[in-house]
């Protein structure tokens, strides 16, 4: 039996805060477990408010932050046991990130094609200029762009949607099995957002790439996800099949979350549906006083 693509078991991450005298620990992620199977690619969505630990979890899966307790295995390899450069490179080929703000992800003084070429050289191990350019062009074609369009361009010459496509193309160069996308559409304009979301769906359906999609937008999560977990304060409060969970949430927090989503169908209601949030604000006041 092949090992699962990704196995996250009872992962905990605690950060120490404060000075020497008033030290306390914040548990950003507390006992999260899930498994992604290797046989069938899927889009696995992590939903949560800011401070719920979803980005910390993503960083642990990318192996840039190591968990305080628990294990993460990628294709059976424990991430904390990766020491050698060769193993690390193999891991990075298999798991690639996409970040939230494409304008921050790229150096404004660097031509955008350099990122693709460097990735092709380092991750895919290509040597000749022609091979590298062909690979970059292939990856760009998959996201609806081509090398001719972006050669020699700087980030400020491209729109947010194009940059995010290039970020995805860059991630695809090493033919990864898993892409970790941390809020990939929250900085993208409304008219371009759906094309990026559709692109993620195509990656799953046509290229067999599994995606961990991190977001706080329930509507796009419903649109593309297969499975979903809802996180709050580092814990998973509810999880399962995406449609089932979002159609009929059980946990009080999930219900509140779904109620707070503003529906475009309420046009002209004059704010009748705005109210659910005040419950939360009262709780917040309690913490300050």
């Amino acid at each position: 039996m092949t090992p699962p693509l990704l196995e996250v078991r009872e992962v905990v991450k605690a950060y120490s805060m404060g000075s020497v005298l008033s030290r306390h620990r914040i548990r950003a992620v507390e006992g999260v477990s899930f498994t992604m199977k290797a046989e069938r690619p899927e889009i696995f969505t992590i939903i949560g408010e800011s401070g719920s630990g979803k980005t910390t979890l993503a960083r642990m899966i990318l192996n840039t932050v190591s968990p305080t307790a628990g294990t993460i295995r990628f294709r059976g390899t424990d991430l904390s046991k990766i020491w050698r450069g060769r193993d690390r490179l193999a891991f990075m080929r298999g798991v690639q990130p996409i970040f939230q703000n494409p304008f921050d992800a790229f150096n404004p003084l660097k031509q955008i094609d350099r990122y693709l070429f460097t990735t092709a050289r380092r991750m895919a191990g290509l040597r000749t200029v022609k091979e590298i350019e062909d690979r970059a062009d292939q990856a760009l074609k998959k996201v609806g762009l081509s090398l001719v369009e972006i050669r020699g361009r700087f980030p400020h010459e491209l729109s947010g949607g194009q940059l995010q496509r290039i970020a995805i193309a860059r991630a695809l160069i090493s033919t990864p099995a898993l892409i970790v996308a941390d809020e990939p559409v929250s900085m993208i304009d409304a008219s371009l957002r759906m094309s990026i979301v559709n692109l993620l769906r195509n990656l799953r359906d046509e290229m067999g790439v599994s995606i961990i999609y991190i977001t706080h937008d329930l509507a796009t999560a419903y649109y593309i996800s297969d499975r979903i977990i809802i996180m709050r304060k580092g814990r998973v409060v509810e999880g399962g099949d995406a449609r089932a969970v979002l159609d009929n949430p059980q946990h009080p927090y999930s219900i509140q979350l779904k109620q707070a989503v503003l529906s475009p169908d309420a046009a002209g209601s004059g704010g009748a549906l705005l109210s659910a949030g005040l419950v939360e604000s009262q709780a917040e006041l309690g913490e300050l006083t």
Partner: protein
Amino acid sequence: MAPATAAPRAPAKENGKAEATIEPVLVVSGLRAYFQTSSFGVEREVRAVDDISFHVGANEIYGLAGESSSGKTTLIKTVAGAIRPPLRVLSGSVVFDFRGRRVSVYDSDPQVMDEIRWKHLSYIMQGSMNVLNPVRRVRHSFVDFAFRHIGRKMPEFMDIVRTHLQRLHLTPAVLDAYPHQLSGGMRQRVTIALATVCRPEFIIADEPTTALDVIVQNGVLAMLRDVQREIRSSIIFVTHDMAVHANLCDRLGIMYAGRLVEEGRTADVFKAPKHPYTAHLIASLPRIGYVAARKGLEGTPPNLADPPSGCRFHPRCPLAADICRRQAPPMTWSSPGHRVACFAAATGSAQ
């Protein structure tokens, strides 16, 4: 600059029946504001606001939608009179009517504008972290922003601030906190409190909830709506999130590449969008419970330094005809209270 004598009339008075009763608080007519730079003899002109006319009625929330670089922030900065070179106003006028007191932003003395700001016209900014001084307590920000405009003695002023904070479901303890001690939602509520403490007639809100989570966003919007109802002010609310517009705004204006392309009552715009861009924006919104494939819009937003000829939307428009490439469509009334700038919409085929 338009002569001050040419008092602009509200377009609604000529056309709509329903809005004829509403006195406009703000009338913007023919406003053009360009970024003009010249370095080493190279002249560049970015037409961020190009011939925009609209009005906002009393006690009304007017939504402005559009993607980034569509000029919506430039428009509201120009409306607020908060512009600096290289941004220049080339023509048009912005006239406020603060309960009988008429102020034309670009024909008034700076002293008049200083007096108006915050007392009658306030501004909720996007990044709450950048508005509040990170090294001073929140109390200091209130004194800084509002003390002079309220014109009371200090203890009395602090009482007013405390009651106002309680009205916004904030404990007066926030006054002694530093901004970093507050959560994002609380900070945003503090900036809303700052903008409303003088009970202004007009509030300009620039993406006040963009960085917030759904639950917090919902609460902040509900609060803004309650405050608006209580002090009966008008709001221009800018965001690119159509779902927020649907739930909050009375009327909605859609901007594309520096121009207003459609305007109407929110329910009308969502039910029967006339401009192909609006129609696309609304059709592409994902909804919980629907999984049918939704298309993104092809192409990229235009570069405002070199905008396309004719209608600026034509390179991405599925209905583009020959005339769209040559001529910019004028804003025309399609039904009472609903106007659109599109040749195709005039024949009723935009949907």
